[in-house]
């Protein structure tokens, strides 16, 4: 039996609608992850041992366990503790946001640590307060290292988001799977889903390259 895309053609719009779901989950979790990442990275480079310890432990746990486990713990496990169900969409954002925060905090920390420590000393010697120094001197320079790595994290998140399928969120992946079940042929819809992911990732990659070029120009 060969491939027959015409059989699933009527379901293309249904699968395509999953792009919106996927992008929404990815975009919101990326924002959540970014904020968590910024805060954790400040803890990591700060002088308070308790906060540094917390941020390191957080990162270690979220990087040291499977993402799908974190997702299921939140979606299936947490309701047992808090007493009410969590919508799949929210559970996905929570899991991806918390997880991504760990990776983003490492990206930002490394970006900041790559800046010559003489820059900090120059700012301190001028009497510039810590917060202003971070905002105006250190972070703008660190962004050159941080942005490309953040873009990579965003791309990874887009691909990894396919595991929300396991908790029944109607993303691209889930929809392709459903169509496969209805038509008794999985190969075509899954290939179609793969094409969509690939195009999304390529789009983001090009965007990232353009961004990098723009950053290079300003040197």
């Amino acid at each position, binding site marked *: 039996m060969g491939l027959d895309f015409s059989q699933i053609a009527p379901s293309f719009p249904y699968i395509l609608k999953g792009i919106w779901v996927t992008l929404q989950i990815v975009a919101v979790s990326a924002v959540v992850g970014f904020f968590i990442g910024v805060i954790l990275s400040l803890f990591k480079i700060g002088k308070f041992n308790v906060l540094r310890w917390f941020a390191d432990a957080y990162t270690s746990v979220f990087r040291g366990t499977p993402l799908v486990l974190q997702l299921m713990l939140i979606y299936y496990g947490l309701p047992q503790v808090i007493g009410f169900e969590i919508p799949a969409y929210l559970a996905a954002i929570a899991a991806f946001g918390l997880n991504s925060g760990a990776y983003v905090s490492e990206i930002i920390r490394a970006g900041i640590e790559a800046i010559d420590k003489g820059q900090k*000393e*120059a700012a301190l*010697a001028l*009497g*510039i307060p810590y917060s202003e120094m971070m905002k105006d001197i250190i972070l703008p320079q660190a962004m050159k290292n941080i942005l490309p790595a953040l873009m990579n994290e965003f791309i990874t998140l887009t691909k990894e988001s396919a595991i929300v399928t396991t908790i029944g969120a109607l993303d691209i992946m889930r929809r392709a799977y459903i169509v496969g079940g209805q038509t008794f042929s999985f190969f075509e819809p899954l290939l179609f889903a793969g094409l969509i992911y690939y195009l999304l990732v390529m789009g983001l990659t090009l965007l990232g390259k353009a961004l990098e070029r723009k950053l290079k120009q*300003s040197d």
Partner: protein
Amino acid sequence: MIKIENVSKFFGETEVLTGISTEISNGEVVTIVGPSGSGKSTLLRCINKLEEASKGRIWIEDQEVTDPSVNIMKIREEIGMVFQHFQLFPHMTVLENIMYAPLKVRGKDKEEAETLARSLLKKVGLEDKETAYPKRLSGGQKQRVAIARALAMEPKMMLFDEPTSALDPEMVKEVLAVMKDLAQSGMTMIIVTHEMGFAREVADRILFLDEGKLVEDAPPERFFTSPESERAKDFLEKIL
């Protein structure tokens, strides 16, 4: 006035400064000389608390820098510092580099800060570079901008940590000329340097450090012609 009283500094187990005491009056120009690794930078950095002295006390006027509860940021506003590797802010233009601290720390408005920055650029001979980014400048130009940036805070004293050591030989002069002007204008200056000609000509006093100890504290003539210690003699023989 800067008063340094019995200051020692340990990095872990290693003692890099041992019981340093001296006083520097207002308007005085003091150079710190000595072999590499003798603790010159560390001593300088203890004054504005980029390093914390392990023992001893340091006063600037009537404020004790080494007091743990002191507001060091306020004190730093009054002490300019110039680094070996310039440390200009690379993402800001020359003018922005100079204006930033007066704007943020002194609370000057933009116009005031700009006027001040321009007059300082003129003073260091770089009025045509205000819109340039640091990496378009030569080392000598960078260091002159760094001096202007420090002066923009209108500090009461200036610290220099080997300001010409990272420069190509032909650029050393232009930076030393700016520093000499500054010394003649009555600025209190502490300068770590290997430029012995400059030290001899401009300094009121020379501090010679060796292995973390203040071995000589003398006017330049005496230091260069009749040093008291063997170590200073050795040092001078090697570099002159």
